[in-house]
């Protein structure tokens, strides 16, 4: 369907949203992909007056703790290490306290001679490790449950092949514990969620059902296209107006009730939930994925005797990421937005990834 075909439907969904809303509802879209689409297509301009969309913490790049980035920088600066990760991780600033040649992000360390590689699939790390037996390949493993199965596959194959020169710097995070943390904070007035469709495609709906049973808010699983987001907003407001705290699946052509059982089995085999600090959030109980004991030999922190980033407190910073990621402020509320903090020299991670709320605002809303 072309955009021109979709536009009238989006308009009628916007009209429906206005017609059914009797109160100024506050919803949060959890996923950075949704945030990006909302800002890119100006969907928030189509909402009924008073309705608020809070941009959620659903950008795994943005919530990776500074201490983990510092660990990655230290590893990348070692001559015996090839440090690899996904593209947008290479720009994320660390704490600014690590004295490493090249500066505070992986691109800087690369410019100073560090061997930093950009991957599009974790399995490329396996190939690198086999091509360079004399060097240590470290994969900075980030992402929600969407990318975690691919990391799990990498771990399983590395173990099966007995590769002694491949390790993982673990920064995988889980979405639902963060939603729980947001609801537990009385300062955040989220009344309903659009859940991250691609995460649910892996995990299924069970965890969301439990969340809804505990916290009594409606959650609608949403896609990422304008039509899908608008339809999910309508579905969520309908539940709010009816006073129903339920999980609804508005992304049914992708998300099945039980998710992807094979991917879930793989995750369960390799990882276990751990408490993990989220940048700007503090420690989220069960908010990370750690390696199970069988896979500890692949843990980069153990192999290189690095302090556990999870045990390092977040540094003080001018960045108001915490408030932005919790929906207590918009990017434009930050005095550094667009001046001292830009995608070229980000002070905080939400300015780095194209899915970060600040980067999306900078890209489409800068004045």
């Amino acid at each position, binding site marked *: 369907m072309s955009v021109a075909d979709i*536009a009238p439907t989006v*308009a009628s969904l916007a009209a429906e949203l206005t017609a059914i809303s009797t109160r100024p509802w506050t919803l949060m879209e959890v996923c950075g992909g949704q945030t990006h689409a909302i800002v890119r297509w100006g969907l928030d301009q*189509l909402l009924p007056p008073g309705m608020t969309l809070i941009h959620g913490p659903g950008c795994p790049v943005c919530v990776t703790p500074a201490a983990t980035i510092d660990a990655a920088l230290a590893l990348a600066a070692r001559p015996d290490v090839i440090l690899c990760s996904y593209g947008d991780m290479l720009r994320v600033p660390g704490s600014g306290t690590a004295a490493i040649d090249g500066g505070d992000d992986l691109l800087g360390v690369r410019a100073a001679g560090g061997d930093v590689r*950009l991957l599009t699939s974790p399995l490329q790390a396996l190939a690198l490790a086999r091509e360079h037996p004399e060097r240590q390949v470290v994969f900075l493993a980030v992402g929600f449950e969407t990318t975690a199965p691919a990391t799990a596959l990498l771990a399983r194959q590395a173990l099966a092949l007995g590769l002694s020169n491949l390790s993982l710097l673990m920064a995988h995070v889980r979405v639902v514990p963060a939603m729980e943390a947001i609801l537990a904070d009385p300062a955040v007035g989220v009344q309903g969620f659009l859940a991250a469709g691609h995460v649910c495609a892996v995990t299924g709906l069970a965890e969301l059902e439990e969340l809804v049973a505990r916290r009594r808010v409606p959650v609608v699983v949403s896609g990422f296209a304008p039509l899908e987001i608008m339809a999910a907003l309508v579905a969520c407001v309908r539940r709010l107006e009816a006073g129903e705290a339920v999980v609804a699946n508005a992304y049914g052509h992708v998300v099945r009730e039980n998710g992807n059982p094979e991917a879930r089995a793989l995750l369960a085999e390799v990882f276990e939930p751990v408490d993990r600090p989220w940048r700007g959030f503090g420690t989220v109980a069960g908010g990370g994925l750690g390696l199970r004991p069988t896979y500890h030999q692949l843990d980069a922190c153990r192999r290189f005797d690095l302090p556990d980033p999870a045990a390092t407190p977040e540094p003080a910073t001018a960045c108001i990421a915490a408030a932005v990621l919790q929906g207590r402020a918009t990017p434009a509320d930050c005095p550094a937005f667009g001046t001292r903090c830009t995608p*070229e020299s980000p002070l905080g991670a939400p300015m780095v990834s194209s899915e970060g709320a600040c980067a999306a605002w*900078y890209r489409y809303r800068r004045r």
Partner: protein
Amino acid sequence: MTERIRLAHGGGGTLMQRLIDEEFRPLLNGTVHDGSVMDGSLQDDPAAGLHDAALLTLPPGRLAFTTDAYVVQPLEFPGGDIGRLAVVGTANDLAMAGARPLRLSLAMILEEGLELSLLRRLVASLAAAARECGVAIVTGDTKVVERGKGDGVFLTTSGIGVVETPEPIHPQRIQVGDGVLVSGDLGRHGVAIMAARHGLDLQPPLASDCAPLWPAVEALLAAGVEIHCLRDLTRGGLASALQELATAASLSVLLEEDAVPVAEPVARSCDLLGFDPLHLANEGRFVAVVPPDHLEAARKLLEPHGGALIGQVEAGPARVRLRTPYGSERLLLPPSGELLPRIC
């Protein structure tokens, strides 16, 4: 055994002379009046032979002069290679000044160890592109750097053309009410390079749009279309080009997003990688700013090649605004930093 470039190939001695005489001269026949582009300069009168500088005899008119350096990985990609890029890119910069491209210089920095077979392919492609653009490569230079100190091949070309427009083409001629057209769909080159670089297996594969622009400009001029400004949409894509024009003209541009042509596979790849097609590089597309009473004629010429009228120039601050198909509005801002694919 694989034949490779050695340091001596750039040393000015016999090895270099053999490379030029045996490898490149036959490939470059017809584009350089049967002379060497590799080291030395031709005269427009071939009988004059080689010397330290080329002496040019050009048609009358104002000259346009431009230069560009080319670094790209991989050196060969679907739809082109660095050789073709180096000729077409510089010729296109001339065309954007309303000039017919005529002469090119070529400087090559080769990395020790470069496979000779690859270099032959690049030079053959470069020669074919020169014939396609109607330019002669009249002077050149070759250097070889140690292995590890180059990226295979770096090329620099400079070009001279003769301006064929009655008025100079320049952003300051842009006026309120002018229409903004693009010459074809956007983002193909950027996606083709990204896919080749990151090993993305696009089905069907997407080819770069790398192509000469002068023929389209010449057709517009021949049809009597008055052109206020042209800009090729290379690095930074449509977003950067229009912001530069808006800034230079101190005027505002309003685009209709659904009028901007983007091919389905480009749009899909961009969704996947987190890129905006309007940020991606093109190597065979330009934007034309044309007064209202010439728009129809310009559209007729550009639309058969995938071009379109995408917006208009308005009074107001130097910004590019974009009206989405949903009736909302946003700014179209240039990309910032290196374009990196996102994680999920």
